[in-house]
């Protein structure tokens, strides 16, 4: 059971959040949810693909970090320190261990107290306090609040985006067969991407509608992001040669 609580400056006065990167802090994940407003920034580092949600009624955009569950090829260990080798991390991952909770109409910050980033005591290296001595929010917490707001708005907007892609039948499933340097054959399947042929065949009127809704640029950003597969495969090859 997740141990979620509404964040407050009494119970969580001494709570600190570890900001270092690493598998130990929940960073060993294959993908993270993303949304059109951050496509421009993310496409410079990650492939952006789409996946069907659990009951098949909608599609989510994902930034890919690896080829299998638990694989994040952007995590790099050098001289004992782990870094995330990309200028930007998707906000849906950056926000952890926080989330938005809803109490009536009010949105509030919740924290997952069992998350490995949650620490107590200030001996922890690379960690941030949430509250100042007299109960005010720290700069770090202010930033988290802003991240959560952006994420919330972005995910709301993503629903219309994915509905538009479905309506225009712009999504298609794809399979990538990858041969790694060691000769092994690997397959990535179960994801969807933009069908460029259909995109190019859209009428002017439909393109204008997409553009007015702010979706057209995001669509092209997602298309452009696929060139990051090359980089992801290189990372995979490097990680395998490093293991030998």
């Amino acid at each position, binding site marked *: 059971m997740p141990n979620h609580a509404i964040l407050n400056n009494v119970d969580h006065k001494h709570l600190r959040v570890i900001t270092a990167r690493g598998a130990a802090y929940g960073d060993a994940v294959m993908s993270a949810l993303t949304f059109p407003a951050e496509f421009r920034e993310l496409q410079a580092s990650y492939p952006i693909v789409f996946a069907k949600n*659990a*009951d*098949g009624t909608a599609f989510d955009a994902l930034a890919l970090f690896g080829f299998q569950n638990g694989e994040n090829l952007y995590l790099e260990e050098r001289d004992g320190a782990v870094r995330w080798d990309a200028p930007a991390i998707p906000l849906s991952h950056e926000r952890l261990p926080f989330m938005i909770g809803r109490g009536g109409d009010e949105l509030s910050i919740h924290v997952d107290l069992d998350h490995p980033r949650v620490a107590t005591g200030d001996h922890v290296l690379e960690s941030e306090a949430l509250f100042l001595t007299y109960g005010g929010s720290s700069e770090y917490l202010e930033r988290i609040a802003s991240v959560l707001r952006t994420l919330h708005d972005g995910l709301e907007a993503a629903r219309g985006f994915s509905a538009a892609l479905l309506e225009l*039948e712009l999504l298609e499933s794809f399979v990538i067969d990858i041969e790694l340097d060691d000769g092994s054959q690997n397959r990535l399947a179960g994801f969807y991407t933009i069908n460029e042929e259909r995109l190019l065949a859209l009428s002017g009127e439909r393109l204008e509608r997409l553009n007015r809704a702010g979706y057209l640029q995001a669509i092209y950003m997602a298309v452009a992001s696929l060139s990051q597969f090359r980089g992801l495969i290189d990372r995979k090859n490097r990680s395998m040669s490093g293991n030998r």
Partner: protein
Amino acid sequence: MSNTIEHIVVVGGGSAGWLAAAVIAAEHPHLRVTLVESPGVPPIGVGEGTWPSMRDTLHRIGVSESDFFRECDAAFKQGSRFDGWVDGSPGDYYFHPFVLPQGYGDANLAAAWQRHHRHVPFADLASFQPHLCVQGRAPKQARTPEFAAVANYGYHLDAGKFGVFLRKHCVGKLGVRHVLDHVEAVVPHENGDIAALRLRETGLLAGDLFVDCTGMQSLLLGGHYGVPLLHQRHVLFNDRALAVQVPYATPDAPIASQTTSTAQTSGWIWDIGLPSRRGIGHVYSSAHGSDEDAERVLRAYVTASGGPADITPRQLAFEPGYRERFWQRNCVAIGLSAGFIEPLEASALALVEMSAAWLADDMPATRDQLDTVAARFNEAFTYRWERVIEFLKLHYVLSRRSDSPYWHEHRQAETIPARLQALLALWRTRPPSRRDFPRIEEVFPSASYQYILYGMQFAFEGAPRASDLPGEADRHFREAARLTAQMLPALPSNRALLEHIRLHGLPRI
């Protein structure tokens, strides 16, 4: 009438007529297709079963599967379960699932089953699908795209609603012209073709090719051309049905995803689960029992299965048989006008699909080509009808029931077609194989014959062969068991998925 085939006239607006019109119009956008039907003929609305081929047909004509489910009161069908056919003792059942036996063709599954696993029903050992049916599982997940399957499936549907659904698609999307009028007369061409139909209100309707979908009256092929019916009552005795619609006992009662066929003294009872109700009917032989007896038997079945006592079944009478030819000159019959046989393996709509697909694929471009196409259509569908009749007969000849003359007579040699007798003689020493069914498009694959034969406990005695590979067979049986264990927890219940489809639809991709 020109030499070019430009205008197809479909006569009759049941599910056969609209399905034929849809398949032709979807494949041939340059052809004009007109469907004429008499006004005021209410759809019958019998619950019917289809084969998995219907998925391809629906996909081919370009409808959404979610719309189809919602508008036709449709549900999943994963095969048939036969209760009481082997000897009528309690717990006598077997499945004919739509999924082929696991590893079929790789090893002699039948031999391995017979030698070491006779205590387990053949289909339950060789396929995961009977277990999905017994556990009330759907054949796919909510996120599986339209027309895609985890476990092969067809449909149960309301045939009346299906006709309306197809009409909307034909008229709205496929450009089929819909004429509501009575056909008063056929106007022949001097060469013997049909030149036109005289309609009561709108006058002459000329056409190049006429598709007779007028049901059992077979207005054009039987009526105008007098092509005789080849009676099959001497092989398959059933000629009556009593049908009734029954509500579920509770709103959340499980929906069966197989057609259950329960053997009776002089016939059998179908039980088909639609989302909103069950369709139940008793098919029987009027030569072996009275209508009153048949109704009593149906009533007993309905109440025993949790249905109401105050049912008023509707009676249907039919003459089992098919036409000597299906295509004469520029007239081809599709549906009941071509023939009808008891619905034991739900072959009616399947034959409509096959006929419509054949016609669309082999559509003659000119009058000159017509006779060539007609000749091979007739040859192919005569073969298919014969095979359907033999396959249905197979269900009866292997029964050990002895509760009535009906079952005894079914096993008498003079009621069994010669080819079926010859095959049964072969199958005494080896299982059915593709050598027994050499055509590219057989109606039933050899696997279906195996499901029936071994479901009916038919034994064979053959010396072991090198290709039997008993170890391989056991590996496939274990794989079927593994798939069962993997699928059962991953698949939603049949009712839950149908409800999800009603609310949200299935994804297109």
